[in-house]
């Protein structure tokens, strides 16, 4: 049965009802890896700052495909599937390093930094016997390349280099502007964090596009009066509505007004204060006043600014039931020691132990668990209303409209759009 037949119903053409079977089907997962992650999209891969010197490399995952990226002799960045063209072994097993070439340990086939096959031991055999056929040419066998774009120090890669639209068009004006903002100074990696979540990768993409949960699930924000739905904030999307940029500006609401709103909603607000909250303070460093922004790019990434904590998040699906969330915490080359330390202190807010983020791991897992046997039922996605998604901006933090945009574009790539479905 085709996927389209399996998903023979979208209860509504505005994607405000999402069938749970979409998260719990092996065939769907297989198709996602081909049509989405290896399809005509730009996947976030890594940061230029991670590989400053010739031969610097890192290994990563695009979808569940292992990938290596490195700096070549001419200073460019190349990426390829981390699979030997010979018998399919993982070529580069380390997470990072520096090397003049990549040699597979199995039979020592050797590739240059552009992924070209440059060495095959005993290609002509031994004492005139054995070896490769005469019609074997090294140039026919290379590591499978990905197309790479370096956008203000942020590396994106695509398996469909010929078909994919230009990166800036793919990002759309808001996201292109925002990533350029984050990459306006040379970056410096502070460290990595990883969170292994037992749930389907799409639940996390929804989480990133659901502004409504921000101060309800993450109670640190309201308990210590750090961020509230009553502040100025909202969402920006690309014209195709596949990406989302949630933003907020602290200090733009009134304590009394916020207190009243949360009391009416029966949600606690501002009941405690931190004994030593100095490290939580925001040190303005941008021309705009935005103190929190969660910039999500379809299908695998998020660029986060939580006060002065900057991080990329890469979603690495492991199976339909698991994904790893890979965080790269960074600052800037021209940060002084105090600012780098301040950013590292604010790493307390994010990641698997983050005071404002740990809950997402649990939220994804409890949804995954409860929906596994409920495939014929669906979720409700209509905070901020249903129907067509009008425009690309919304000035409310009480919405989950960008989730519907995610599903619309997902359906287009998967070939399962609702009849007359919104885009």
């Amino acid at each position, binding site marked *: 049965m085709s996927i389209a037949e399996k998903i023979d119903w979208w209860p509504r053409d505005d994607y405000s009802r999402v069938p749970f079977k979409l998260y719990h089907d092996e065939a769907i997962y297989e198709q996602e890896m081909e049509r989405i992650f290896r399809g005509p999209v730009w996947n976030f891969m890594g940061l230029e700052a991670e590989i400053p010197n010739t031969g610097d490399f890192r290994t990563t995952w695009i979808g569940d495909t292992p990938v290596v990226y490195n700096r070549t002799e001419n200073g460019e960045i190349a990426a390829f599937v981390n699979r030997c063209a010979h018998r399919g072994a993982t070529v580069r097993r380390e997470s990072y390093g520096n090397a003049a070439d990549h040699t597979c340990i199995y039979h020592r086939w050797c590739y240059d930094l552009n992924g070209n096959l440059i060495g095959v031991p005993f290609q002509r055999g031994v004492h005139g016997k054995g070896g490769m056929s005469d019609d074997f040419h090294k140039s026919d066998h290379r590591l499978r390349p990905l197309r790479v774009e370096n956008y203000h120090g942020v590396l994106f890669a695509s398996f469909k280099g010929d078909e994919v639209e230009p990166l800036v068009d793919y990002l759309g004006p808001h996201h292109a502007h925002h990533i350029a903002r984050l990459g306006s100074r040379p970056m410096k990696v502070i*460290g990595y964090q990883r969170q292994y979540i037992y749930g389907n990768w799409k639940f996390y993409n929804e989480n990133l596009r659901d502004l409504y949960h921000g101060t309800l699930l993450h*109670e640190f924000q309201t308990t210590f009066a750090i961020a509230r739905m009553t502040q100025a904030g909202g969402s920006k999307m690309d014209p195709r509505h596949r990406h989302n940029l949630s933003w907020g500006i602290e200090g733009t609401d009134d304590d009394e007004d916020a207190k009243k709103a949360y009391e009416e909603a029966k949600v606690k607000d501002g009941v405690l204060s931190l004994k030593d909250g100095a*490290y939580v303070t925001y040190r303005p460093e941008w021309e705009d006043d935005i103190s929190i922004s969660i910039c999500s790019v379809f299908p695998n990434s998020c660029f986060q600014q939580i006060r002065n904590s900057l991080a990329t998040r890469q979603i690495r699906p492991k199976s339909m039931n698991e994904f790893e969330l890979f965080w790269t915490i960074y600052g800037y080359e021209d940060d002084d020691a105090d600012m780098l330390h301040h950013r590292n*202190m604010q790493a307390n807010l994010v990641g698997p*132990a983050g005071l404002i983020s*740990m*809950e997402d*791991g649990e939220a994804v897992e409890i949804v995954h668990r409860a929906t596994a046997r409920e495939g014929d039922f669906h979720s409700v996605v209509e905070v901020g209303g249903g129907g067509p998604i009008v425009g690309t901006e919304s000035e409310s933090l009480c919405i989950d409209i960008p989730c519907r945009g995610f599903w619309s574009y997902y359906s287009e790539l998967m070939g399962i759009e609702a009849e007359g479905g919104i885009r």
Partner: protein
Amino acid sequence: MIESKQREQINDLLNDYVWYIDTDRLEEWIEFFTDDCTYRVIPRENVEQNLPGVVILCENKNQLTDRIVSYREANEYNLHYDRHIISNPRIENGKGKNTFHVLSNYSVYQSNLDGETRLFSVGYYDDVIVYEGDTPKFKERTVVVDTFSIPTLLATPL
């Protein structure tokens, strides 16, 4: 030469520390640290790349207290029991009088409310232990996590 009494006291501190976590006495657990303590949880991959990036960093007892208050009052996490196992403590004299550098291995098993147990975290403690009067306390406790792809989330201290 380290006096056997001090060795015993330091071993007791290591044991009490994990026992208090596993029995949910976190408000008392804070008292195993000095006022100017540093408690950090750092992924092993960062240590190996000489990167300072942490998962948790508290630079005094007030910040440690805030972590615990947040854990009690604000954070949501997977409902679970922890069980710490520590082994191979290696106690050396540190820099300064009555200061000790202590290394020990740990593993933490996590059990959910259905009684299913998983190995949650493996790593080691790298400590600077000092004496406040007759009582040894952690001036620094660095938790280096081998299991740095942290399953689900990390709420309860390691």
